């Protein structure tokens, strides 16, 4: 493909070395100090307070800010609560469903974009739109489109004769797929951009060599392109997975966690426990469990990331 611009490798590239000097410890600390103080005040302190309250029976509805020490009761209660495990299961289904569809869609779009010569830049700009929208607005948009009475998508589904119930968002089987669909709609372009960035780093020589060996388009994709960008596919999925883990807005506005608790992902469960039942002790206990899980995920991601000169 002549005239095609190639970029520097994106993942695993060596960054310019900026080695430091131990004699400047004082200067370094003075540069860091404002950030450290801020992070301690607004993150470490609140998380510490949450850990503390998770061992208390704080309930703003019943006893206000008064509380008693209850040891591990909240953790025991939550780990024995079937609703907690149900929301863990729903979250897992959501993350797995959304991320795998986004990955497949992203690979598809990126391969198509990699194959064209004109309009690639314009196209990537255009498809960035969904991922820039506030997730709440994404939820609102799909709520409107899937409205059982006058939603445009409902109308289209009916016209096409698809075997779907008229009220998708209140249907036990289809509510969660609708939440997944909204997330897929918002984030597939993100995956496509990441995969495309990876595809552009494959040396042309490698592709030519495969073609000279008689590989057809599909064989080139399957045996050269995808294996080479495997690290990018893994990092991209991982980042999306972590982000999907934080989802709150879309199910909040699209289904409100319902019908029943069919779309009550873990963040919504925590929110309901803390701010609907006002059981702060139990709410913070779930929060701490999530936080520990999050630290472990961050650790895995950090190990996978290209080495920085930190």
């Amino acid at each position, binding site marked *: 493909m002549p005239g095609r611009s190639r970029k520097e490798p994106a993942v695993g590239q060596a960054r310019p070395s900026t080695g430091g000097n131990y004699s400047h410890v004082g200067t370094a600390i003075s540069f860091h100090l*404002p*950030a450290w103080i801020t992070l301690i005040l607004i993150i470490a302190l609140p998380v510490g307070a*949450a850990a503390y309250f998770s061992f208390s029976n704080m309930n703003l509805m019943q006893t206000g800010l008064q509380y008693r020490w209850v040891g591990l009761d909240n953790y025991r209660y939550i780990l024995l609560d079937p609703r907690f495990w149900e929301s863990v299961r729903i979250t897992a289904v959501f993350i797995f469903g959304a991320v795998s569809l986004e990955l497949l869609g992203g690979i598809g779009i990126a391969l198509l974009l990699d194959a064209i010569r004109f309009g690639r830049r314009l196209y990537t700009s255009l498809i960035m739109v969904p991922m820039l929208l506030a997730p709440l607005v994404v939820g609102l948009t799909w709520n409107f489109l899937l409205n059982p009475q006058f939603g445009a998508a409902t109308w289209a589904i009916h016209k096409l004769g698809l075997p779907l119930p008229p009220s998708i968002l209140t249907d036990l089987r289809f509510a969660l797929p609708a939440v997944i669909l909204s997330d897929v709609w918002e984030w597939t372009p993100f995956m496509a951009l990441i995969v495309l960035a990876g595809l552009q780093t494959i040396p042309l020589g490698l592709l030519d060599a495969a073609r000279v060996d008689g590989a057809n388009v599909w064989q080139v994709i399957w045996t050269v392109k995808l294996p080479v960008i495997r690290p990018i596919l893994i990092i991209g999925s991982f980042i999306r997975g972590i982000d999907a883990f934080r989802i709150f807005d879309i199910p909040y506005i699209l289904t409100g966690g319902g019908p029943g608790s069919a779309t009550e992902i873990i963040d919504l469960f925590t929110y309901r426990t803390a701010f609907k039942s006002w059981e702060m002790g139990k709410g913070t206990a779930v929060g701490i469990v999530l936080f520990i899980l999050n630290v472990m995920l961050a650790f895995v991601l950090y190990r996978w990331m290209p080495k920085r000169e930190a």
Partner: protein
Amino acid sequence: MILSERSRQRASTITVYVVLGLLAVALLLPYLWLIITSFKSRVDTFAIPPSLTFQPTLDNYTTAFITKGFLSNLKNSVIVAAFSTLISVVVGVPSAYAFSRYRLPGQEQQFFLILVTRMTPPVVLVLPLYLLMARLDLLDTHLAIIIAHTTFNLPLVIWMMKGFFDSVPKEIDEAGMVDGCSPMMTFLRLVLPLTVGGLAATAILSAVFSWNEFLFALILSGRGTATLLVAVPRLMTIAGTFWGQVAAVGTVITLPVLAFAFTVQRYLVTGLTFGAINE
């Protein structure tokens, strides 16, 4: 044979463009539908089949923003996004510079902790922040939301700006030192001006993240400080939803983001992947 080979190639190129075109329609149509709806009258909004020929009106905008006071929510959104970005930049940029230029014991671990904070689900932080703000009597203040948004914007600024500082040659700093500049002067006068593009991109992204954030704002705001997103559910009443006005507010929430984001789109992927992938 060469000719047929070429025409086959042309056919496949056309197929690729057609498929891409259809995908673009699928990705843009739902959002375009929201914008179109914002210009429809009540009757047209609920028309079945969906109406494409209608008399456009600005009623939804005037009702929502003037009659129903969404203008003050717009102001709240601007205040929160601006100040949380300002704090994050002022506090985070020097730290990013130090991460790039100096080496402290345990630096690797500190950098990891900053990644952790960026990834923490908001619901984990919002509980203790709510209790803290209640105790300090700061609920329903701009400050409470600004602080909450700084929890994710400050780590973002540090991660992104470190990347930009890394791309400035270290010789610049050395030249400054030789000329007798203090470390602070070297940073402010010599290095920072070389990263202005990156700084603008970082600031815009962090303002966008704040602008688009819902949960913190929902919990910590009150009547007087609700941001645009928090105020939207007000239009969804038991008696029914004012979809035209929802669409109008949704349009106002999203259009400025699109306008700003396109100016920094080449940094977008970097910002959204914690710098793991440079596009």
